[in-house]
């Protein structure tokens, strides 16, 4: 596959335009034209289904981590019955290594608002909630302001642009809980409860907020919608990797010279992102490992990266995933035992406690890793850890147990020597 021409790519979500967060500037640069087209151009968009089809065709793979076709998700909503229907926008953004949606809140909030309103139109939704993690207080304030501006401009509220559609748009602040990024946990939190994930089925499209049809999309996913409407699904499909198309917000952090959020096509080589975009490893050191898309995605050794590009197909060949495209880069001095222990500590802290394999399993992962980190572990503990991961994975209501298990399994398998070197010599007689 040919490499995308990422050096000449013009950003869409976070273009280099000053004060784009101001609604007047956003409009001046073509903002809300997609919304106007969808809400008023009955020839181009004869019904809401035509909008869903265009988005489905574009194959916007969910940018929150699961990578599911957003338009296909929209098509799961049952026919409207006159009752309330909800769109819950997921701005919880708590997976370690992920810090991209905040760039949309800060630099281009209206592209997300416009995308969410088009989604609401397409699914005949009456109320939109954007759930933002409580720690993002600054961004919550910015979003409140942007939404008010959109209300004042007539893009939200009653009879939007004379279309006869009424849509309300509210911000709901979280209060510190990683699990609320899990979609059904987020619904519980929106309903004012502890963020316990729900058993599926029923899926949110059937029974979501207050038992009504609900769709949940990530902020970046929705922010891609206006360009798909304006430029068409074909354009979107032509950007980046074939099976994972479109622009992507790459969040690069860790031991690089220039960390940050970069908007580039999908399918950029991992090594280009590290060495060209983020301008290499700090202090001229060697690259040791990279976590491609948030802490739950399996880590890759530097020697696994040749020819690997940031899209699901390529990453799958080396046993990892795109996740949130939040890349964490580690240099040659990084202690993988310490890193894995810290990741395990995170998932233990954030387990909601509903399911036994996760509540207990994440605790044991952390405890055993702490023992190894402190030089008290034995080689057999590594196998115990691997055994634990298989007992956790797929046995719980939500994917947090999987997210905790994967990094443990893959970091041990890919850096086994380093873990064994940290273990004390076994006192057991060899058979």
């Amino acid at each position, binding site marked *: 596959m040919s490499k995308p021409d990422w050096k000449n790519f013009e950003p869409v979500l976070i273009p280099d335009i000053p004060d784009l967060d101001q609604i007047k500037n956003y409009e001046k640069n073509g903002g809300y034209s997609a919304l106007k087209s969808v809400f008023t151009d009955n020839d181009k968009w004869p019904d809401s289904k035509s909008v869903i089809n265009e988005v489905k065709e574009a194959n916007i793979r969910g940018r929150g981590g699961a990578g599911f076709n957003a338009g296909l998700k929209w098509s799961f909503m049952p026919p409207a019955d006159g009752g309330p229907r909800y769109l819950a926008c997921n701005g919880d953004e708590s*997976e370690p*290594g992920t810090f991209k949606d905040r760039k949309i809140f800060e630099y281009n909030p209206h592209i997300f608002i416009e995308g969410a309103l088009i989604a609401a139109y397409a699914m005949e939704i009456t109320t939109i909630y954007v759930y933002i993690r409580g720690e993002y207080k600054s961004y919550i304030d910015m979003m409140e302001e942007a939404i008010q501006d959109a209300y004042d401009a007539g893009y939200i509220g009653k009879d939007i642009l004379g279309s006869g559609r009424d849509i309300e748009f509210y911000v709901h602040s979280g209060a510190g809980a990683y699990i609320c990024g899990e979609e059904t946990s987020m619904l519980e939190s929106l309903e004012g409860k502890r963020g316990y994930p729900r058993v599926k089925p029923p899926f949110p499209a059937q029974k979501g907020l207050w038992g009504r049809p609900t769709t949940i999309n990530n902020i970046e996913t929705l922010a891609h919608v206006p360009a798909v409407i304006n430029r068409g699904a074909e354009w979107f499909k032509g950007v980046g990797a074939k099976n994972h198309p479109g622009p992507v917000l790459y969040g690069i952090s860790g031991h690089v010279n220039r960390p940050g959020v970069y908007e580039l096509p999908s399918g950029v080589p991992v090594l280009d992102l590290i060495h060209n975009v983020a301008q290499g490893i700090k202090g001229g050191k060697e690259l040791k490992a990279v976590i491609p898309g948030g802490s739950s995605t399996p880590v890759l050794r530097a020697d696994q990266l040749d020819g690997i590009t940031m899209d699901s197909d390529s990453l799958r060949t080396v046993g990892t995933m795109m996740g949130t495209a939040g890349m*964490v880069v580690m240099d040659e001095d990084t202690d993988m035992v310490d890193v894995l222990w810290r990741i395990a500590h995170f998932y233990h802290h954030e387990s909601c406690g509903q399911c036994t394999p996760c509540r207990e399993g994440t605790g044991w992962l952390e405890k055993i890793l702490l023992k190894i980190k402190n030089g008290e572990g034995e080689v057999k503990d590594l196998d115990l850890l691997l055994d634990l991961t298989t007992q956790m994975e797929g046995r719980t209501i939500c994917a947090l147990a999987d997210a905790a298990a994967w990094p443990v399994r893959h970091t041990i398998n890919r850096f086994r020597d380093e873990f064994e070197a940290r273990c004390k010599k076994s006192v057991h007689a060899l058979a």
Partner: protein
Amino acid sequence: MAYEFTKEDLEEIEKLKTKYPEVTPVTLPALWIAQNRFGHVNSEVQKLVAKTLDLPEAHVHGVATFYTQYYKEEKGKHVLDVCTCLSCQLCGGYDILNYLEDKLGIKKGETTDDGMFTLNEVECLGACGYAPMLQVTNDKYVNHLTEEKVDKLIESLKNGEQPEYEKIGMPRRNNIK
């Protein structure tokens, strides 16, 4: 002491009720209003929230204890939440935490004797590219921390100055090789 909402708080809570089809969802925002008013949501404040919303005390207690940002007991005037998770760990988050422990003479989770500072170690705050960093009392992020920057922050907080919002510019494209 008896905790009471002000008239403005109650008006805000009434307004919040119009955002949702029922009253339970107001639990989270009402706890935020209470915490902003009283500085914490201890069991007495939780009871006040329950009474105000006409919801069971057990429900409000359950919610308050699930989310880490609600302070279930009184904290220092300034709460320093130092991130040590993954990217911050890699970029020296623990050094910053240790430095603050030494500087303030307390361990993480503790409050200084004068009630000025509470120091916490927290999980990922979503500022991974700007590590190491901390958050001041559930509000502003202070990024790219060094010992000097920490010193300045502590001084300014002691002088009653709150940190400004740090706008981090977008990386300019023409720098990409």
